[in-house]
């Protein structure tokens, strides 16, 4: 056989193998099992030794895995049971391999505390990760600001939040707006104006993902303002029609609202059986602060 003939035969055989593989997959499809993701090694020290002096690159690999895990769970179809169990271990491994990987700490601060289903709702782990970052870089004011943020938004502990904003403001190179933010948080913690001040500053951040997270919070605050106004209309209707279930259609018919109101994502607000107005579960703004994943407050 000539060399060209052998090459052609090899190409044909490879093509046949690929075609058989595809045909077999079509004939015997794999069952669609919703398997949880695996993480073989969870010990940062073990991975650090295994990575030899390629720990920075290994950290990048775990970082990408953390993003894929989080994104995969967050955007999974509704029938998938969302499980963010690997988010913290992956971020922990990333930051053990590369203790200066700022974005991994800060990403964790934002998304570990995010309530279910948008995140695992583990503000405690967010805090653990940020404190680990502070141990590696004690002068990193951004981590202090993020700890303040976790206290503020996820734990509603405004006094601790103000303390951390103050600590961050005292670090050399920290932005000037942190000091007044600490004062506003202490004086008006929990007020929407204070929240707007916090997220307004974060929305100016240079990191796109942090900007996006802050903008989402601002949209949630806007939605809460709209909900307050709608709640007043619902209360008015309830006063006029006591005992009657309230729907948007009835409010439109009563000319209390011009049409079915929608949030900034275009998803209609919902009226719960109790008459409470809130964002729908399908909305990217869900859940609002204090709103539980089952849509009850």
């Amino acid at each position, binding site marked *: 056989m000539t060399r060209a003939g052998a090459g052609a035969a090899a190409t044909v055989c490879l093509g046949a193998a690929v075609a058989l593989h595809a045909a077999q997959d079509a004939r015997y499809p794999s069952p669609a099992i919703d398997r949880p993701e695996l993480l073989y090694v969870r010990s940062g020290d073990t991975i650090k030794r295994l990575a030899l*002096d*390629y720990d*920075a690159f290994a950290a*990048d690999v775990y970082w990408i895995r953390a993003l894929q895990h989080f994104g995969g769970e967050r955007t999974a179809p509704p029938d998938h049971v969302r499980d963010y169990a690997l988010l913290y271990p992956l971020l922990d491994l990333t930051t053990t391999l*590369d203790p200066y990987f700022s974005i991994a700490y800060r990403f964790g601060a934002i998304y570990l505390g995010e309530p279910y289903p948008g995140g695992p709702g583990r503000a405690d782990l967010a805090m653990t990760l940020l404190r680990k970052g502070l141990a590696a870089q004690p002068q990193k004011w951004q981590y202090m600001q993020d700890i303040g943020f976790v206290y503020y938004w996820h734990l509603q502990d405004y006094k601790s939040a103000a303390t951390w904003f103050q600590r961050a403001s005292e670090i050399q190179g920290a932005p000037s707006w942190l000091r007044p933010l600490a004062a506003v948080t202490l004086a008006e913690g929990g007020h929407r104006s204070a929240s707007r001040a916090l997220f307004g500053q974060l929305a100016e951040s240079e990191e*796109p*993902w942090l900007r996006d997270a802050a903008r989402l919070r601002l949209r949630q605050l806007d939605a809460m303002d709209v909900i307050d106004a709608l709640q007043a209309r619902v209360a008015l209707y309830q006063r006029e029609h006591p005992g009657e279930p309230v729907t948007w259609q009835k409010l439109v018919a009563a000319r209390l609202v011009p049409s079915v109101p929608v949030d900034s994502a275009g998803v209609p607000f919902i009226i719960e059986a109790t008459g409470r107005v809130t964002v729908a579960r399908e909305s990217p703004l869900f859940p609002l602060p204090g709103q539980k994943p089952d849509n009850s407050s």
Partner: protein
Amino acid sequence: MNAARSVAIAVFKESVRDRIFYNLVLFAVLLVGASILMGQLTAGQDVKIIKDLGLTATSVFGLFISIFVGINLVSKEVERRSVYPLFAKPIRRSEFIIGKYAGLLLTLMVNVVVMTVALYTVLFFLSRGVSPNVQRAWDAPPIDPALLKAIGLIYVDLALVTAVAVLFSTYSSPMLSAVFTFGLYVVGQCNEDLRRLDQIVGGPAAGIVGKACYYLLPDFARFDIKLAVVHGIPVSAGYMLWTTAYAAAYVAALLLGACVIFSRRDFK
């Protein structure tokens, strides 16, 4: 020394003939491919990751060349019996060893220089459209001259690995030389554990053995400043000089050892 130079040039030409520089194509494809993909996968960390990838690939590819070419440098000549006519010429065995070593260092240098140029080129294109505001949030500038420090120590690291491989190559088979060299490289990465052996195992004897190994075995972890450089953490000129001097002393010791062993071998 003319003889050593001739041997070195011959080693370099042989590397070219053996298509060792084909790894540069793989390196370029890896960097360019990664730079295209990274933007979508890394939440704005593409420049950092390309730096990590570029430095890691420079080190890994260099390590493979150091070990797998280094272990064959001497043993292949002995197996093929090509050393016999060579030693009939006016060349000392030490010149032969040093020439072989220098030839591989030259190959590694060309390799590292081309990879460095490729890395800076990819970083230039990657950072071209990024606004200065976003760049300010990065730990280090994209076209960072400090990367050269990390690359410099990678080269020094490779020089030490090559010296280890050449030493083993003078008296052992290629397979065993590869195992010994890689084994020593791994142990040298975990040198810090040897220093703290008394805390890990317990007992003063373990401490003494651990400390002795810590100082005697090559400390390869010392050459790794990749993480610091990528995060813009300053690496002093003093550290660079001490580390390079340490490697130079160790390489000299290994090459002298190789020359002694090789000069005692009987080729009759």
